[in-house]
């Protein structure tokens, strides 16, 4: 079995949520808030919300879409905000731009909506990441599989989704190691195709385990 030049090191990530001194009571305020909030806040309400609510697979994609639906009763805009696929973003500036554009386009068509008060305000939050190595290193695909089965939601979310921002690539830590560490280009590609936005973390992890098992059996 091929041994990688460098091991895959598993980390777990914990996030603490900061309540920022910024809130929106209307769609107009949400638009302004999106312009001025921190990158950490954009991350929290998009990438992080997918991790926090990974067990919801139907009709939930991010905090912004959920607030627009539940507190402003604007299903069309909620769908549009929810349809932004965060896997396509490798930097938060681009994601912020697209979120603002989506809200602006809606307000252009429905200018009166800008001032309608929501049932509940939207509170801008952000998260701080605390990373800790689990002390598990995999040098081979078999070792990788062993530890993959043992990691929790936080570690999977960190390596599979958050890694896109860190790597600035439309990829993930697993695929990068499969390709660069083990020369398994096909496994890397198939891993990139796993759609975490329409699955739970457990579901995505099960798919990856299946792919790894197939590779090990080949």
């Amino acid at each position: 079995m091929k041994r990688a030049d460098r091991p895959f090191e598993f980390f777990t990530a914990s996030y603490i949520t900061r309540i920022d001194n910024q809130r929106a009571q209307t769609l107009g305020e949400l638009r302004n808030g999106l312009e001025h909030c921190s990158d950490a806040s954009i991350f929290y309400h998009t990438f992080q919300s997918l991790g926090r609510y990974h067990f919801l697979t139907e009709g939930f994609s991010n905090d912004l879409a959920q607030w627009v639906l539940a507190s402003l009763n604007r299903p069309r805009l909620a769908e549009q905000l929810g349809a932004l696929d965060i896997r396509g973003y490798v930097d938060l500036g681009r994601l912020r731009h697209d979120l603002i554009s989506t809200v602006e386009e809606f307000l252009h068509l429905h200018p009166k909506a800008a001032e309608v008060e929501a049932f509940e305000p939207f509170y801008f939050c952000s998260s701080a990441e605390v990373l800790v190595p689990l002390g598990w290193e995999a040098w081979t695909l078999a070792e990788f599989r062993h530890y993959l089965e043992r990691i929790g939601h936080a570690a999977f979310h960190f390596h599979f989704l958050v890694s896109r921002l860190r790597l600035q690539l439309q990829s993930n830590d697993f695929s990068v190691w499969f390709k660069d560490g083990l020369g398994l280009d096909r496994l890397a590609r198939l891993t990139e195709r796993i759609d975490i936005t329409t699955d739970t973390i457990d579901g995505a992890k099960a798919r990856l385990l299946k792919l790894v098992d197939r590779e090990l059996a080949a």
Partner: protein
Amino acid sequence: MTPSTLTASRLMQLDDYAPIIGVQEVDDLRALAGRLAGRTVQMVNSTAVGGGVAEILNRVIPLMQELGLVPRWDVITGGNDFFEITKAFHNALHGGPYESRPHDFETFLAYSEQNRRRFPFDSEFTVIHDPQPLALIDARPPGKNHWLWRCHIDLSHPNLRVWDFLRPFVCRYDGALFSSPSFSRQLPIPQYLFFPCIDPLSDKNRELEPCQVEEVAQRFGIDTDRPVLTQISRFDRLKDPVGVIHAYQIVKRYADCQLVLAGGSATDDPEGAEVLVEVRKAAANDPDVHIIDLPPWSAIEINALQRASTIVIQKSLREGFGLTVAEALWKKKAVVASAVGGIPAQVIHKHTGMLAHSVEGTAYQIRFLLSHPSLAQRLGEQGHDHVLEHFLITSNVRRYLALFLHHDSHGRS
């Protein structure tokens, strides 16, 4: 350990939680705690028994100990005059009126000074709970320690006289922890979202045998063959029990259901007794309305009543965090609740339950769920997952560990 340091009444081991949260989560907790091994933590509050804070600390302290930290828990003391003042502060911070009496603030500070001398304050991480011990920040020694204020109450509309007195103390902490973003204030220090939690192994939440549930239901005359709508809460106007009856009366036109209103505080609280009379009057002798005045030691009964329910209601007009919602979700119950206080954090509308804003809306959501049982089941299951992820005692410990590590690496603010 000092004589004043309390020990937990019941030691639950971390591994006891593994079948519930998964061994992976336990591994994560151990990995995080490994970075904090031997570090000292001090929790300070105002009561050793009774109330949600003491209940949580009773569980958190032994778990931190097992994870290799060195925690201590100290309880401040004071005379009746001190606790009368802090009770008045508490109500005022919740937005109630405050009738200032001469020397209130001086008395508060004098007792804080006494408590400052009672305990050592040499821990690396000190967490002060609620306003009663807030002024202990004066005891902060110089050096690399971290002081955090955990505010369990809703500060969104405080009486400004009291808040203006307390705010300078708050601003001297390294961070403030709130149960909901809506409870926070504009402050110059970092504010963190820090949910309260339930213990899945406590009598109120642990699994019960179906026969235990049936026994409790029978004891209270509840027919489990017909839908049961339940609200568990004190007989308090802010919990709107009369509104719940009106919602039930609307639903009853369409579905043969029963209503259970179970709670305490009626015997020793004059207002509770008054509300109970109003509730009985609104129920108008309907045999399908079960009004149950529970004594404080009714954890198993509450657990069974929640499990016997088809839908759990929390139609509060104002709410703290409303952990009864998390309790119901943990039992995979469909929940219809008001969008107030900490409830929207627990009930994600149409995903982990239904939010409502009126009697009619509550009735409509109940009718909808009664006629769509598969949706009710899905909401309950997703609600359970939501609690598993965010509102269990183990998540609370994880949040503390992450917070300590974060502050440790970022220094004092």
